[in-house]
């Protein structure tokens, strides 16, 4: 479990009121120079190789790798030791929750990190005679642990260093009590706040947790646990590994409420349990049939679950949402759940915060269904000329727009153009919800609702992708060998080669692109963004009612990233995450 320790040093007794000394102690205990906070996480991973015993429970340092989970705490108490000699006074470390272990070292404040580089040398643990990598550790209990007098004599005049590791979450201080005959004569108190750091990744529509694979592999060495319906795949599974800055990564799989009584029905009566010959694959729930409220509920469920782990008590959580995942996050944070208090950051990337004009295709298709009949019950049709034949074939009047719908959701789209990406079924209700003109979006963005976002406790950030015209779902690529380059695909342009795919009709295009305030028709470049969401619609901190703490949005204006590729952009994600939560990243 990851946790951090705030080492704000307060000397409670006047004898030791030197602020300078206190700050110096804080600095030496902190792994991040320049930061006012030291970081100590709970060392419950398994460097010992035994998954049944978290490292903090073994009573020893579990090898060289485990040393990375220890932190030096400089005890600059040389003056104190001189004034109150160890032979006559006892120095007792106490922590009310027993949240820390420690081991002795011969390090000094100036060489506090020596245990990370000279791991084989002795000078640690009991008798200061053990190698760092296998030194014995002792729990700092509520009753207290009396520091070894030999250690105290050694640090006389120069101060000393103990290595500490976290055991459990706690907000109780670390106390150094100086006692004589069981009576306290002085006390140093270090306020602590040990809590887990959790990054929760939220995928977008028509997607799943694998969309984060590149990011998780790069930023978390591939360690990230999936949460679905407020649970993990294996009950009581060990948490994912901690990063170098004490962060654990979880991925939420949406879809818990896709076929419950609240689920929405899409065009042509489409539900998550529907199948048809065009797309015969059994659907997997991913939240596309839920309203925004239930998407937010899924985040609440996930956080409720995470907080049931005693090690995650008081956990700090950052939400990172791609596309609709960012909408879900906002829905959660604009609600009334008590779990909001655990969230300290929200970063969205490519999120349709103000919806997307492309979503209005849902309205267009609603008004222009696959089959239209006259008052006599006869289907309206149009003649279509087939090359090589002078005889036109008869097609339903709206055949062209619906052929785009069918192609997007067909396996041909996957095999012919989109590689491994899942087919996109625009009949799903999520498409209509994410239209810029939808009541779902206007409800989410109402000033009185936006103003529910926590103001001071959360830092907000956005990543915006720009310069790709609206409608482009795939850019040309990968372009390695002649003849096998994937074509660019836009719903407004179709594909000429190698697979001939029809575009949407002109009336559909006009409807979707709309007109500007002066009545002029918009174009695909009016709505430049990531192909799916216009750039300006990817922001939420500009909405009326927002008054929270925000960092400047990062805009990638290269025009080479389309919507579905955004979760892979690890450098962009980490750059902006570091602004949202500076101490969470190296």
């Amino acid at each position, binding site marked *: 479990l990851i946790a951090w320790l705030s080492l704000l040093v307060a000397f409670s007794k006047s004898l030791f009121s030197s602020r300078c000394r206190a700050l110096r102690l804080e600095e030496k205990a902190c792994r991040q120079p320049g930061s006012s906070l030291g970081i100590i996480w709970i060392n419950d991973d398994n460097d010992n190789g035994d998954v049944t015993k978290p490292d903090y429970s073994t009573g020893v340092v579990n090898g060289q790798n485990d040393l990375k989970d220890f932190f030096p705490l400089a005890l600059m108490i040389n003056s104190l030791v001189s004034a109150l000699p160890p032979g006559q006074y006892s120095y007792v470390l106490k922590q009310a929750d027993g949240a820390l272990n420690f081991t002795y070292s011969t390090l000094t404040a100036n060489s506090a990190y020596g245990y990370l580089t000279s791991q084989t040398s002795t000078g640690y643990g009991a008798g200061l005679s053990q190698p760092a990598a296998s030194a014995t550790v002792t729990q700092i209990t509520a009753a207290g642990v009396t520091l070894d007098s030999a250690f105290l004599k050694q640090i006389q005049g120069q101060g000393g260093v103990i290595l500490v590791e976290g055991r459990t979450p706690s907000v109780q201080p670390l106390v150094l009590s100086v006692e004589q005959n069981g009576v306290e004569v002085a006390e140093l108190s270090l306020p602590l706040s040990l809590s887990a750091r959790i990054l929760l990744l939220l995928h977008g529509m028509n997607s*799943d947790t*694998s969309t984060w*694979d*590149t990011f998780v592999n790069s930023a978390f060495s*591939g*360690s*990230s646990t999936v949460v679905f*319906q*407020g*649970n*993990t*795949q*294996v*009950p009581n599974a060990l948490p994912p*590994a901690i990063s170098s800055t004490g962060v654990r990564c979880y*991925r939420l799989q949406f879809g*818990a409420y896709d076929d*419950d009584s609240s689920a929405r029905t899409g065009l*042509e*009566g489409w*539900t998550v*349990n*529907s*199948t*048809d*010959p*065009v797309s*015969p*694959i*059994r659907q997997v729930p991913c939240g596309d049939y839920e309203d925004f409220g239930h998407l937010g509920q899924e985040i609440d469920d996930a956080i*409720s*679950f995470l907080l*049931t782990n005693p090690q995650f008590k008081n956990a700090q959580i950052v939400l990172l949402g791609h596309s609709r995942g960012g909408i879900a996050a906002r829905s959660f944070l604009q609600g009334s759940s008590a779990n909001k208090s655990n969230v300290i950051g929200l970063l969205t990337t490519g999120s349709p915060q103000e919806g997307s004009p492309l979503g209005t295709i849902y309205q267009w298709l609603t008004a222009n269904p*696959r089959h239209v009949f006259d008052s006599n019950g006869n*289907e309206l049709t149009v003649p279509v000329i*087939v*090359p090589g034949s002078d005889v036109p*074939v008869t097609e*339903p009047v709206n055949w062209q727009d619906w*052929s785009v719908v*069918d*192609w997007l959701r067909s396996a041909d789209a996957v*095999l012919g153009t989109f*590689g*491994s990406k899942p087919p996109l079924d625009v009949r799903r209700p999520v498409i209509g919800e994410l239209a810029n003109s939808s009541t779902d979006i206007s409800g989410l963005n109402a000033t009185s609702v936006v103003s529910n976002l926590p103001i001071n406790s959360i830092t907000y950030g956005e990543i*915006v992708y720009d310069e790709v015209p609206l409608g482009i779902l795939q850019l040309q690529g990968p372009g390695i*060998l002649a003849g096998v380059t994937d074509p660019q695909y836009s719903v407004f342009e179709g594909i*000429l080669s190698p*697979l*001939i795919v*029809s*575009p949407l009709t002109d009336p559909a295009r006009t409807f979707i692109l709309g007109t500007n305030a002066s009545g002029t028709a918009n174009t695909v470049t009016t709505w430049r963004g990531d192909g799916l969401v216009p750039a300006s619609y990817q922001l939420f901190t500009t909405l009326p009612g927002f008054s929270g703490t925000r960092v*400047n949005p*990062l*805009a*990638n204006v290269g025009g*080479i990233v389309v919507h579905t590729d955004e979760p892979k952009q690890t*450098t*962009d994600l*980490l750059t902006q995450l570091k602004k949202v939560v500076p101490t969470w990243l190296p």
Partner: protein
Amino acid sequence: MKKKSILIIGFALVSLAAGTILFVDRKSPQTSELSVGVQEQRPAVVSSPAQSQTVAAPLQPTIAAEVSTGIQRRFEGMSVQERNQIVDEIAKQGPIAIFQAWIKAGRVDREPMKQRSIGFALSGTLREQSTNAAIFPELQKFITDSSNSFNERGDLLHVLGEAKTKESLDLLIQAATTLPEKGLKMTAAREINSAGDLWGDGTFHEELSPALERVWRESEEPYLLNSAAVAIAKVGAPSGIQLLLSSALTGGLQADVRQKAAQRALQDVLNPDAVPVLTELLVNNAPTSMPGKLASSILAGMSAPSAAHSLISWLQTADASAASLVGNYVVQTHSPAMLRAFQSALDPSMRFSSEENREAIRAGLAQYNADRKFGK
């Protein structure tokens, strides 16, 4: 207008000639209402002998306790803690009992949310107890029994896909290659595709590669080839990468589907174990040759520091023709390790056989930085 006419005509031609599925819904409205958006009808009672046997089996204590209370609250109305209490109790039992509970949740309780939750736990148990052989014949029997509904069988394929073990993969491959129903075959293929997704345990599961490679060698089905290619690439075992590279570099009409599938899939490689294979291909071919371009582009898209090191080392010794490629690689970089490697190449102490390669990196980095702006 001319372009649109061509598109419409071309579209119709392809649709007719290929017997494409694009126009399946051109029947009478009555027919189409039946064929599109059909709701899954779960059987109210168990009809097949296999199912009878399953439900007739003694209910596990937890399930029995639920039933005995008489009034069952809906799963979706429970708190997370309440739901998890039920599912975690079920998950403590063996995989066969969990499977029984999964069936019951759908057929008796009629609680899709509960069934999915149990299915998720079943995946975890299959992963944890992958050597528990007794469960797999049961799962196979259920999947092949056509009297079970399409959606139930599809959902069970998803359970197997989420497990991502050798045993579950074998079942999926069997389903994808032998089931008579196209929809289920394609569902199984999709789940094979996801076999390469990260487990989240920090390792790449190369033990899956041999089975996937067999599919790649033996199958002729485009959808299965595509799925296998993606999974092989994401698993990233050297043998699998070698196989895909070979297909990606084999031209000709016959190889077209494989070639495309392999090339697309190779863009998904993340496993550092693939780096030596790619490096070997890279250093033994000219930068702008097909093998050279393929290998360098794959390495450039990886996140692993070893991939970055390999690419930069190659650029140091490559001739100036590599400069035509590298600028694009830099601009498209999404990995911190790769970005750092490119930045380090600007250090004058790093020697390049061709300074043009360094200058291409410099130009690429300038573009990379120009592409990123911080707004107000």
